[in-house]
């Protein structure tokens, strides 16, 4: 019985060794990513139910508030504007549930034992975590894409380039939220504690993201907190991407871009902030994950 298999050199000092190692890590990352996708698509009930909340926000709370604006003197134009304003935030919200569920899946894997199967494998732990986060972000983006499909109802034109840009921004926002969930998951090991902490954390993350009301209309303390929230920049970036393709530019203060003092934060920097936050948080989570037994 042959027991020795062709394997990349363990030390990885040669070029082939390094490439072999990289290929092996890539394969593991893809496997972890795929597992997240399989889990998500096998659980149809969860998929349907988690779509309910963002839809409720957009079409019940959104329409309700929009009509309130219309009634209080803004006219029908204001009602439409508010729905358009709310739309990017709702996309982020749709992505939120599956994104943070990656955190609970890490804690759950620990509880159910599968984490151990992965931890004793000859792979880097950071690869496992990265695969997990990218998988979660991909699932979250898919979920957001379903809400995005209803964009026409709030007056967003169906254009391929716009949708591609929105999906890319959504994916970035999803990654940021996934990584945040992962940071909490590798710090708190008890499932019950984890769920409580994350629920408490996710509330302010959404409410203080300029998703429902513009930063410009917030009192100082609230604006300060909102500007410290990376999700704010993701929502704002998406809002202005939508606006760029919108036929009539609404001129209300709703769409004033996020500003530091009087300086409007450009779109590129906004995306860089979200990306930078994800990278730093991922590095921190991965360091912590590598240390734990």
């Amino acid at each position, binding site marked *: *019985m*042959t*027991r020795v*298999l*062709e*394997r*990349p050199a*363990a030390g990885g000092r040669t070029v082939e060794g390094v490439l072999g190692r990289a*290929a*092996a890590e890539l*394969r*593991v990352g*893809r*496997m972890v990513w795929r*597992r997240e996708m*399989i*889990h998500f698509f*096998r659980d149809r009930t969860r998929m349907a139910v988690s779509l309910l909340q963002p839809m409720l926000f957009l079409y019940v709370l959104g329409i309700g508030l929009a009509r309130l604006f219309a009634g209080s003197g803004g006219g029908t134009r204001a009602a439409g504007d508010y729905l358009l304003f709310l739309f990017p935030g709702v996309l982020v919200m749709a992505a939120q549930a599956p994104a943070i569920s990656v955190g609970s899946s890490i804690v759950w894997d620990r509880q*159910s*034992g*599968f*984490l*151990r*199967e*992965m*931890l*004793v*494998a*000859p*792979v880097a732990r950071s690869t496992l975590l990265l695969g997990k986060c990218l998988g979660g972000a991909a699932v979250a983006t898919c979920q957001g894409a379903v809400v995005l499909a209803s964009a026409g109802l709030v007056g967003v034109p169906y254009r391929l380039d716009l949708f591609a840009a929105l999906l890319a921004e959504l994916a970035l926002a999803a990654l940021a939220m996934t990584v945040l969930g992962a940071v909490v998951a590798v710090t708190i090991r008890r499932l019950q504690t984890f769920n409580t902490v994350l629920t408490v954390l996710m509330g302010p993350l959404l409410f203080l993201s300029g998703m429902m009301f513009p930063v410009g209309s917030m009192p100082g303390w609230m604006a300060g907190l909102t500007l410290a929230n990376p999700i704010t920049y993701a929502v704002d970036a998406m809002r202005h991407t939508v606006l760029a393709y919108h036929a009539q530019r609404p001129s209300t203060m709703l769409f004033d871009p996020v500003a530091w003092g009087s300086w409007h934060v450009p779109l590129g920097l906004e995306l860089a902030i979200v990306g930078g936050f994800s990278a730093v948080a991922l590095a921190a989570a991965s360091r912590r994950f590598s240390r734990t*037994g």
Partner: protein
Amino acid sequence: MFTVRRQHAPASSAEPPGTPPAILATGVRKTYDGMEAVRGLDLTVAQGEMFGFLGPNGAGKTTTIAMLCTLAVPTAGRIEIAGHDTRTAPRAVRRNLGLVFQETTLDVELTAAENLRFHADLYSLPTGTLPPRIDAMLDLVGLSDRRDGLVRTFSGGMQRRLEIARGLLHRPRVLFLDEPTTGLDPQTRAQVWTYLREVRAREATTVFLTTHYLDEAEQCDRIAIIDAGRIVAQGTPAELKSVLGADRIELSTGDDTAAAALLRERFGLDPTVGERGLCVQAEDGARLVPALCAGLDVPVYEVTVTRPTLDDVFLHHTGRGIRESTPVPTAAEGL
């Protein structure tokens, strides 16, 4: 007495000289927060051996296994798995290990085949030969017909068998089984063991297992008993039992005093008189019984011959350890 050849002789004799042992641990210590969980452990397991690792709860078993599979780093000492140092080459060690833990580590939301495929990705097994390998492993544990069934729907015994198949998928040198049959009913337990023997026959893997069932330990080529962080006994089951000495013969007679004198006189034995009758130690007790019955002039009502079991061995070694750790309880009790 213990010259009986084991059915499964260690395969080490077949290995070319210079082949490193499957497991080699020297002077291993582990201290947690000033508590010494393992205090100087030496262990050698030859390639192809089935090795049983026994010990009471809290003896350092779990800690030792964690160190052997690179999940914990020893405070002192050195561990090599198939010649690879767990500290300097943990990846090489992990590639050579198959692990089946006490609690299940399967993904129950996936199918049996998917669990194996993910394992193959984790260990970067060549994809070309993977499908036949997966089929062979499922066949080995009798799960071929449940290939695409969700693990959630499997019974405890089936899950355990699937884990054994998964642990072997990457052809490890050593398969670790941490209480592989705990929580299974006797029938399922027997079935798992049937497959384990099949595994040995077909894959020629070294098997290192812990168990609370002494009948399972009996099936191992060699056994080590750990207590209070140290190995207190090591050897084949027969060797360990021989340490306890000969068989015990208990006699119930019409006149114990007379019988005792006769035993001394005619058989050269040294009987002790107890409440339940006479008791003597003798080699090959069962063969002695007819001679005893014929040679004693007093009526013999009952004869019991007890061979030392691993149970006795275990109690003997760990029992002594427990007394040592609590030195003078009697003085306090007397007050």
